[in-house]
């Protein structure tokens, strides 16, 4: 596909170096790491090398890294596993979450509440969608099983003070899980400094393949496995490991960590050009999410009185791939819960636009978008004023 891709928060292309690292494991190095023979031994070596690579990115022991099928599975495993283990171990029956979590977290919390009898507290966020340590501290109870806070928000880009929040939770003996899927590749992942009990990440937002993720789990906290079977991944996640994808995940995150400063500087500059350009040329536009504490590649806006979905269609036909923040291909304009939690009215929230840049984005791309967007928004607003234009003049 030609055109300008500004939806790197949805997914990224696989880095050719990552692809090259993966390829042998589809064909010549196809062994099952559980096997006795040398095919198996070589596969096991690749698996454990990848685990060690990822552990060094996370600053943890290799045994604290579990491989999963992706960020959503990691979130599910951590949240459900920690909650159920805490109930079993100490009778804890309460979960603390936020209204700005990814669906993988929100839906899991709701299931734990509705079907497993946990109590759920969602703490309030500020107008930037940011969670404060104080708000979490106020929500924690002696019977809190687990708390969960997203690291970098997928929809509005806001970065949460995870280290502060984790310190508060740890002091109360409560494990803090963080969804770092969107942050992985852009933000520091040193779990020692973050102080979290668990951290979920995936590969495909960081120039790795889809369908693979990992979970960091502090072995000091108990976890009840949700997928049972063999003794893979210390018995916490059954299933033959997908070696080529695991190799790809580790390589993608290794590269991302090594080149982070360079890529972030590039992306931050383009992001800031987009933000300044949009806010400067489009009336009734505002930034959503935090103005400073935001993901380096992430610009998100609310445009009053614009049908966000129609805007995406027009942008796509103009060769610009963008997003409204919460993937909605059904044409059903429900204002996003995240934007409502930030206090936006539906009139603003329905006009959400997310532009996320990547390693390959150029200044010329940004120029093109900034040149086309204002007129397009103006036209859609005009249209919204008169949904049945032709009716007046027609039959």
């Amino acid at each position, binding site marked *: 596909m030609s055109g300008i891709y500004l939806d790197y928060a949805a997914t990224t292309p696989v880095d050719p170096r990552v692809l090259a690292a993966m390829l042998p494991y589809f064909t010549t190095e196809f062994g099952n790491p559980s096997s006795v023979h040398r095919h198996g031994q070589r596969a096991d070596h690749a698996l454990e090398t990848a685990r060690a690579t990822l552990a060094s990115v996370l600053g943890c022991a290799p045994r604290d890294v579990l491989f999963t099928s992706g960020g959503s599975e990691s979130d599910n495993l951590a949240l459900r596993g920690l909650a159920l283990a805490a109930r079993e171990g100490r009778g804890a029956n309460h979960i603390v979450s936020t209204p700005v979590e990814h669906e993988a977290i929100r839906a899991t919390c709701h299931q734990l509440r509705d079907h497993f009898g946990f109590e759920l507290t969602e703490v309030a966020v500020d107008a930037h969608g940011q969670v404060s340590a104080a708000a979490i501290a106020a929500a924690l109870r002696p019977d809190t099983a687990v708390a969960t806070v997203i690291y970098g928000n997928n929809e509005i880009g806001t970065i949460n003070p995870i280290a502060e929040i984790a310190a508060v939770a740890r002091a109360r003996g409560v494990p803090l899980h963080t969804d770092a899927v969107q942050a992985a590749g852009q933000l520091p992942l040193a779990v020692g400094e973050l102080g979290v009990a668990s951290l979920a990440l995936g590969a495909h937002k960081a120039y790795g393949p889809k369908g693979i993720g990992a979970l960091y789990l502090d072995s000091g906290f108990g976890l009840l496995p949700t997928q049972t079977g063999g003794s893979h991944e210390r018995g916490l996640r059954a299933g033959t490991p997908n070696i080529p994808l695991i190799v790809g995940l580790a390589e993608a995150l290794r590269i991302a960590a090594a080149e982070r400063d360079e890529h972030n500087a590039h992306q931050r500059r383009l992001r800031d050009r987009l933000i300044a350009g949009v806010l400067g040329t489009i009336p009734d536009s505002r930034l959503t999410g935090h103005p400073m504490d935001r993901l380096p590649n992430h610009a998100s806006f609310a445009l009053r009185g614009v*049908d966000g*979905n*129609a805007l*995406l*269609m*027009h942008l*796509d*036909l103009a060769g610009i791939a963008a997003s409204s923040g919460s993937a909605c*291909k*059904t*044409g*059903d*304009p429900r204002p996003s819960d995240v934007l409502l939690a930030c206090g936006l009215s539906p009139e603003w929230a329905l006009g959400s636009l997310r532009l996320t840049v990547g390693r390959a984005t150029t200044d010329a791309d940004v120029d093109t978008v900034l040149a086309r967007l204002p007129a397009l928004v103006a*036209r859609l607003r005009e*249209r919204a004023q008169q*949904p*049945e*234009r*032709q*009716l007046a003049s*027609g*039959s």
Partner: protein
Amino acid sequence: MTRVVIAMSGGVDSSVAAALLVRQGYDVIGLMLRLWGEPTADQRFNRCCTPDALAQARRVAAQLGIPFYALDAQDLFKARIVDFFVDSYAAGLTPNPCLECNRHIRWTYLLDQARDLGADYLATGHYARVETPDGPSGRGYRLRKAVDTHKDQSYVLSVLGQAQLRQALFPLGHLTKPEVRALARELELPVADRPESQDLCFLADGDYRRFLREHAPTVLKPGPIMRRDGTIVGEHQGLALYTVGQRKGIGLSTREPLYVLELRPVDNALVVGGADELGRDRLVAQRVHWVAGEPPMGPIRVEVKIRYKAAPQPAIVNALPAGRAAVLFDGRLRDITAGQAAVFYAGDDCLGGGIISREPYPTTTAAASDS
């Protein structure tokens, strides 16, 4: 390159229509409108655009290599079609929402969306034909019946005018349904039918009586059932629950079979009578629309369809002032129903139509024309 927007439903007809447009070399964009659907316990989808239908249309578009988008028209559909539907029943009329949807949603809102996307044409999977003028002297754009008369949908398209027909494409108009199915199989497109235009797509289950009971109970006012002479023979549960010509389910136990002759909102009466009293040979239509853009001069002999699935009946139509028309049939029809459309045909040409009213037939059409 000529750009065409095709309205896609995920069903066989619009999928084949899209494929034909691609094959003809157009620059094709697929659109689906998200329409209002009755909320139920676990969902609120219009049956025209369920998540399954949307996914299916997306798959078809991907298979054809064309872009596809879903657009929201829920509020507009609710205001223009659903509210109109309820208001019509409240006024003792039996509406045809498909026709209104073509008027207000497909061929106004969607056509405008298509124009906004730089499209030269809007195409649908309807079975009908558009004839372009053959020369500067010729008539304007003509709307014609489909070649497959069983599938012909010109009735619900009779609201189209020159401005719309100029930009309308009906790729299936020359094909029969079996041919369309064969094409679908050949092109490995879905062959399942989606609900067609006679369905009330916004109802959760297709039962309009239940819908009115639940969503517009004030529409349903009990009232007298009476004979033409005023004799009260029973009580009805709301005029909206009955249609002209209906015999079963009136709730009367008489020796002589009684039929619904008329829904009379002025005194909320359901007028019934014997088979011999049933039927009329004339009607006045309002909100009359002429495909050609203007009414014919003087009376014309036509065939008239008084329901989507009714057989065309020979009649003489006289255009009256204020967008009205007087229709005099050659014989009596049992089920002339206020609120339905009377659509006029000259052979395969759809000339237009109007909404059947309760207005009394003028004593002389000439006098009415003069007034």
